[in-house]
């Protein structure tokens, strides 16, 4: 029986409690046990086994809040890029992994997956923005975190999309007047544009897979 610690990065961007509670629920159903800790302490993040970067809100305010916490960006870079700890970014947490975001002007992101965060522009003018509600994902690659999940519908709320430089980083795509990347990843890094913590059984299963994932 393994015991792991998962750090949920608390940088004042949205409903972090939902992510924490959903992870705890997923862990209760997993063979992997351990603790889920809401934290912004750089040392605790570096020491943890896995990291969740959650988030709701706008690119500009979220990246500013993340950078304003002393040592947090450096700790994340070290944990993810040097120590290669598995990380899951959710919604804005995924978008922050990009090179640049264009919401509220151009802003530098964490640059873990090269690409830009740009507005959703569905061809059909009847389609509303934000893209809000349940939509299905189409797998572009096999990824262990997406294994054995019955439904392909997840809950989305966003007006911007992640456009990666290397299309090989796209794990799934979703159609909303255009195809956009609904999950991306490389090596130990994974991110979903949708909210697993709000996607009922499918989302809880995905989080359980993340808990059990060893890239």
């Amino acid at each position: 029986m393994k015991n792991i610690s998962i750090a949920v990065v608390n940088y004042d961007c949205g409903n972090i409690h939902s992510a924490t509670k959903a992870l705890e629920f997923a862990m209760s159903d997993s063979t992997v046990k351990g603790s889920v800790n809401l934290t912004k302490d750089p040392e605790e993040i570096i020491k943890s086994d896995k990291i969740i970067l959650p988030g709701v809100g706008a690119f500009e305010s979220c990246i500013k809040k993340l950078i304003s916490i002393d040592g947090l960006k450096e700790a994340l870079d070290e944990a993810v890029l040097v120590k290669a700890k598995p990380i899951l970014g959710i919604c804005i947490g995924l978008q922050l992994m990009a090179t640049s975001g264009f919401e509220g002007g151009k802003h530098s992101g964490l640059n873990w997956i090269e690409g830009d965060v740009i507005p959703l522009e569905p061809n059909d003018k009847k389609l509303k923005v934000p893209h809000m509600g349940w939509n299905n994902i189409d797998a572009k690659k096999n990824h262990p975190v997406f294994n054995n999940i019955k439904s392909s519908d997840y809950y989305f709320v966003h007006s911007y999309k992640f456009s990666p430089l290397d299309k090989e980083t796209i794990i799934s795509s979703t159609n909303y007047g255009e195809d956009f990347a609904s999950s991306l990843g490389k090596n130990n890094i994974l991110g979903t544009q949708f909210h697993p913590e709000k996607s009922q059984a499918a989302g809880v299963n995905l989080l359980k897979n993340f808990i059990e994932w060893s890239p």
Partner: protein
Amino acid sequence: MLKTRIIPCLDVKDGRVVKGINFVDLIDAGDPIEVAKIYDRSGADELCFLDITASHEKRPILLDVVRKTAEQCFMPLTVGGGVRSVSDIQVLLSSGADKVSINTAAVDDPNLIHEASSIFGSQCIVVAIDAKLVSENNWEIFTHGGRTSTGINAVEFAKKVTSLGAGEILLTSMDKDGTKSGYDNELLKAVSEEVSIPVIASGGVGKIGDLIDGVRIGGASAVLAASIFHFGEISIQDTKLAMSKAGISVRL
């Protein structure tokens, strides 16, 4: 493809569900958390709590209900009722609400929508509009639970709050609410055609066909109902199957 959302709405007063709930397997029909868990399991796409608690002192009870619901139901939760300020919104979001619906305060001070969406993001700001037909193709907004006339045109106001940063509109027909004769599809159509954000249909559902009409005729992105679901007259699953048969994309 994006699915049309089915949203059950619970009226909550002093932490208890007020409109009767009639599920056979429910132990405490007045407990919003128990009711939320049933809807979570039955495949509702979102949940809505409308707090009708009159006394300000009892507000913490609602926050506790929201917190416990969010700890047990991993689905989107909208909470409305008595939201007057940025700090009201902050408290609800930090208690576990995903979206906050603003009604009277949005009419009194539309700038609140701009302020709130700048701070928390458009995705969590829902503007609830209660409208009544006053003359041909002219719907007027009423506030304070439908008691106060405002002279404001509902379509114009919907456009205004959209430009101020609202992420969604919850549109209730006061003429239809409680009648079980279907949504006001003309009102829905007038608003949904004029705004770029999703519109949730509300008020008047009596049968599954009404939900289908709200989407097909009214152009709603989501359909909200209370009593038909609460009284167990129609299950969420049967509703979705019927909507799917009618050619509407739903999450089955």
